[in-house]
């Protein structure tokens, strides 16, 4: 009995589909249930971020970076201000560095919680989603306490942060961590080691190391394929060299190295590492100190260009900024990690069943705001 080839059919998933995580359209060529080719069609959320930047001052760009990766706005702020500060060769006070690291790691936990919860939801597990969003809410409450916003913060500014941490923040953060650490075990019991979940994810959508590297996939997706590459460790920025944490890589625990389950589990491990970094950062943070470097009202970086990259929850976020010495950047280019993650989808999904496409797409953790910019 050989495989019977029927007529191929083109099927559209999206742009309005709950498991495409935004407005993404997938052109899927199917033969029955088997996928032969998959083409992502993007651009439904294009907002001309890069062109907008050419008409705005360096400060005004920051609220727009929020809106690129709207699930990890702090990390995007961080990436942008680090790039501008490198261009200006500016050194920020030590306290600012600590606040930034604390915010970025909290954001990493929040972003991963949403990614994991929604992944469960895609597969069909509803309860973990509610549990994870409940805990994410506590992080958002802390952000609201700090800067008044819950999703789009505009908190990190060039040369500092917009204001100091409020009184009682450190205590609240420690309380949260004490509450949160046992919750990770609960998620593991509830979802990670659930047999149905494993059946849907293990051995599916295997991303080999060489393919991942040649496509430029970064972040948890790359680490799940067994590549030990984390910019916080390998190309360190801010004060990440002060902290002791492990770079988690996938080990093929339930199937093949680099399958969907690995991509899921690496995120779970990273949440644990973020908790570790947070504990160190909150304990070491200087009590007083200025939170804003003295700067002229209009920021005029010297003539030149910079490419700087940081590790966001989704991977390697790069900013290329070209300055001609005026208060307005000549060119801002953003390299988004989710874009490269989506580009590898065609390679991953060929040959799998229709229902597996959802679990492969969910495991890549894409954010359309960042892909289209």
């Amino acid at each position, binding site marked *: 009995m050989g495989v019977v080839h029927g007529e191929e059919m083109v099927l559209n998933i999206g742009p309005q589909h709950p498991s495409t995580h935004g407005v993404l359209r997938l052109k899927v060529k199917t033969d029955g249930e088997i996928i032969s080719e998959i083409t992502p069609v993007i651009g439904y959320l294009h907002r001309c971020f890069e062109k907008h930047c050419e008409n705005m001052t360096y*400060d*005004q760009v920051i*609220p727009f970076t929020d809106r690129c990766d709207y699930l990890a706005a702090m990390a995007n702020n961080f990436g942008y201000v680090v790039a501008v500060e490198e261009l200006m060769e500016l050194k920020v006070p030590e306290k600012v560095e600590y606040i930034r690291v604390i915010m970025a790691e909290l954001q990493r936990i929040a972003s991963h919680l949403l990614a994991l919860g929604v992944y469960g939801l895609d597969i069909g597990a509803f309860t973990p989603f509610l549990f994870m969003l*409940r805990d994410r809410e506590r992080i958002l409450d802390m952000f*609201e306490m700090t800067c008044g916003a819950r999703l789009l913060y505009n908190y990190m500014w060039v040369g500092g942060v917009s204001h100091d941490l409020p009184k009682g923040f450190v205590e609240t953060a420690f309380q949260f961590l004490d509450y949160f650490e046992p919750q990770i075990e609960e998620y593991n*019991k*509830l979802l990670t080691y659930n047999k*149905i979940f494993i059946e849907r994810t293990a051995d599916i959508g295997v991303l080999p190391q060489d393919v991942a590297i040649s496509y430029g996939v970064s972040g948890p997706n790359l680490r799940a394929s067994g590549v030990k590459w984390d910019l916080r460790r390998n190309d360190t920025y801010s004060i990440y060299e002060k902290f002791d944490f492990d770079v988690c890589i996938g080990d093929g625990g339930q199937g093949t190295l680099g399958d969907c389950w690995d991509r899921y589990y690496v995120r779970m491990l990273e949440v644990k590492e973020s908790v570790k970094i947070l504990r160190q950062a909150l304990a070491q943070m200087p009590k007083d100190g200025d939170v804003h470097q003295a700067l002229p009202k209009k920021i005029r970086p010297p003539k030149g260009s910079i490419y700087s990259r940081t590790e966001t929850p989704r991977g390697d976020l790069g900013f290329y900024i070209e300055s001609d010495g005026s208060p307005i950047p000549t060119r801002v280019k953003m390299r988004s990690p989710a874009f490269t993650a989506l580009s590898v989808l065609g390679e991953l999904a060929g040959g799998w069943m229709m229902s597996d496409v959802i679990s492969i797409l969910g495991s890549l953790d894409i954010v359309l705001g960042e892909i289209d910019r």
Partner: protein
Amino acid sequence: MSKYFRDIYESLSTMMTGLGITWMHMVRIRKNNVTLQYPEEKWPRPERNIGFDHSNYNVIRTRLHVDIDDCIGCLKCERICPVQCIKIVTEKAPVRGDDIKDIGHVGVTSNGSRKALVVTRFDIDMTECCYCNLCTYPCPEECIYMTGGPNADKHPIDYEFSEFDRSDLIYRFAKPGTKEGMNEVLSKDGAES
């Protein structure tokens, strides 16, 4: 064959573990775990004025409000706005720092600065506002702020301001009739001199 039965066993056992956790949550229901009936009850908002040395830190993102009596028309907020949702038009006042009673213009701000300009138009389009809070920092008179928080005594918090019509979300802060009144004042001045 043994794998077949092991799979069935594992599916059932892990499912029971998960159900156990959800069951325990149902039994030990805590107050914060349940959904709030939103319009009747609301989540407590974080305390705002916590620990800042000076209370002019405006850490809240709600509707923008302008104390028009304090506005000197310096246009700093209009220039910094990344989405250009603030529109200001000013006219030169006949005498600096003088009240113009006809149009309700106050000559001196509560900070004591003497105003040289009359603000005839101050519109904020809240449909366009991106709540980045950038406009509140450069204001020299601290008259543009987001409602509530440290400014709750001046203006209570207002974050539920939905409207049926989009044009109702354009907030016009300049006193009504300022423009026409100003024209009259200026023409009267011109006739006298």
